[in-house]
């Protein structure tokens, strides 16, 4: 373990203090209708400003990037779906976003496998439209 400089004091404010690693990274992303739309794989930060405010979070990044998350390195931008921070509705045990997935599969790039399997495999099996009861 490298010895690190102690972190600066947390800014005193009225808001909630979130640790990006502890409270945001790897959490489940849910759309407004409770459809899972991925997990928080990374955060896109604004370039560090010199005004002492520290960087701001611009967007949540999600995608099929398990390999680079395990073995390091940087995936091409096209592998990551960007969800601008203004779409985030709440951060709790899950992160709720307004991603507009249209009943589960809409237009997010990171859900293309789900859409492809739905249209090319599941769509050919009878009884696919109703939940089992």
């Amino acid at each position: 373990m490298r010895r690190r400089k102690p972190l600066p004091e947390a800014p005193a404010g009225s808001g909630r203090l979130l640790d990006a690693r502890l409270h945001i990274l790897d959490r489940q992303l849910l759309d407004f209708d409770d459809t899972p739309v991925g997990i928080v794989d990374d955060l896109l930060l604004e370039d560090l400003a010199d005004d002492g405010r520290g960087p701001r979070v611009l967007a949540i990044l999600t995608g099929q990037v398990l390999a680079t998350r395990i073995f390091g390195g940087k995936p091409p931008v096209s592998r990551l779906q960007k969800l601008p921070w203004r779409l985030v509705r709440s951060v709790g045990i899950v992160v709720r976003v307004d991603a507009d997935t249209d009943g589960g599969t809409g237009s997010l790039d990171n859900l293309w496998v789900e859409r492809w399997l739905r249209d090319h495999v599941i769509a050919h099996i009878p009884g696919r439209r109703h939940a089992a009861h």
Partner: protein
Amino acid sequence: MSKLFAVALGVLTAIGGFLDIGDLVTNAVVGSRFGMALAWVIPVGVLGICLFANMAGRVAAVSGRATFEIIRERLGPRMAAANLGASFFINLMTVTAELGGVALALRLATDAGPLMWVPVAAFAVWLVIWRVGFTVMENATGLLGLSLIVFVISVFLLQPDWTQLANQAMAPAIPESESGATYWYYAIALFGAAMTPYEVFFFSSGAVEEHWTVEDLGTSRLNVLVGFPLGGLLSLAIAACAATVLLPAQIEVTSLSEIALPVLAAGGKLALAFLIIGVVAATFGAALETTLSSGYTLAQFFGWAWGKFRRPMAAARFHVVMLVVLVACASALCTGVDPIAVTEYSVVFSAIALPLTYLPILIVANDPGYMGERVNGAVLNAAAMVYLVVILLAAAAAIPLMIVTGAGQ
């Protein structure tokens, strides 16, 4: 009245659903080789699974998070992926073993070769997962699994030497034909059979499937705390049957017919009929649970949509994974691997992988961020820590013992 009915139904399903091919085979093997000298492991395992399932169910009901979502969030992608690899592999072994169990039981009933029954069993499992609701599925297999009470009845019909059985259980001694290493190897196998990780994946995901809330916790705790120990009694009865009939005759358990032998001797064809119904229900139910668990673990780790409560169209990856798993496991059986051998390995590997899932659940059950006021109490944590040590010891000893004993030979 309806509440009482719900509790009774829950307890009965927990008893009937407790046993799977791992418990059936391991208890019979142990009974036929060691008598009741390993009976003490069963209460240890049952108490452990009560503790573990109860904790995982509470975490799922309070936080809405199932086991592998928690593993990902707490361990990070690297450790969680290693964990997923191990858990998924063991789960595949268990699916194979359970499908093989269904086929072996149907073969006892029909004389048609087991290979003929494998595709039928796999297709039936898929059909139930695709079309039958979660609660109906659980209750039907659990209630039919209650036929395995025939093992308890058989013990009484066999009129064993009760004092001898009690002596074997109370003052365990390793039989002369066995070594100390095989004794401990089978102790770990029995422990793994009682505390299979898939039971916990399934239990916590089931809590989400059935939309449990904090109000349901009392009922679920009762189901577990009453149902599982009674299920453990069935395990003891299987071992006692084997100890009474197979041990003196030195019959080795190599297939389901040896497990059925004491029951046939005790109660004739009628008892055998109940046994076959019970084994089919228990292994079929467990095949459903393990197949679903393979979908649950993968989907939860990657953050996909999952669950039988969703339309298959809205959980495409989840359903495709289960389809592929069933085809792969059925194909593996069709190559002629021995389901009993797969079962014996799967219970030991279960014990090896147990710490990987136990520890994250224990950590989150103590995390107020997830659990609010419903974190573990002091007594529960003390018991959970004792079990953490037991689980770690069993996992650490399993592989050396497997090598030394040649997997229990």
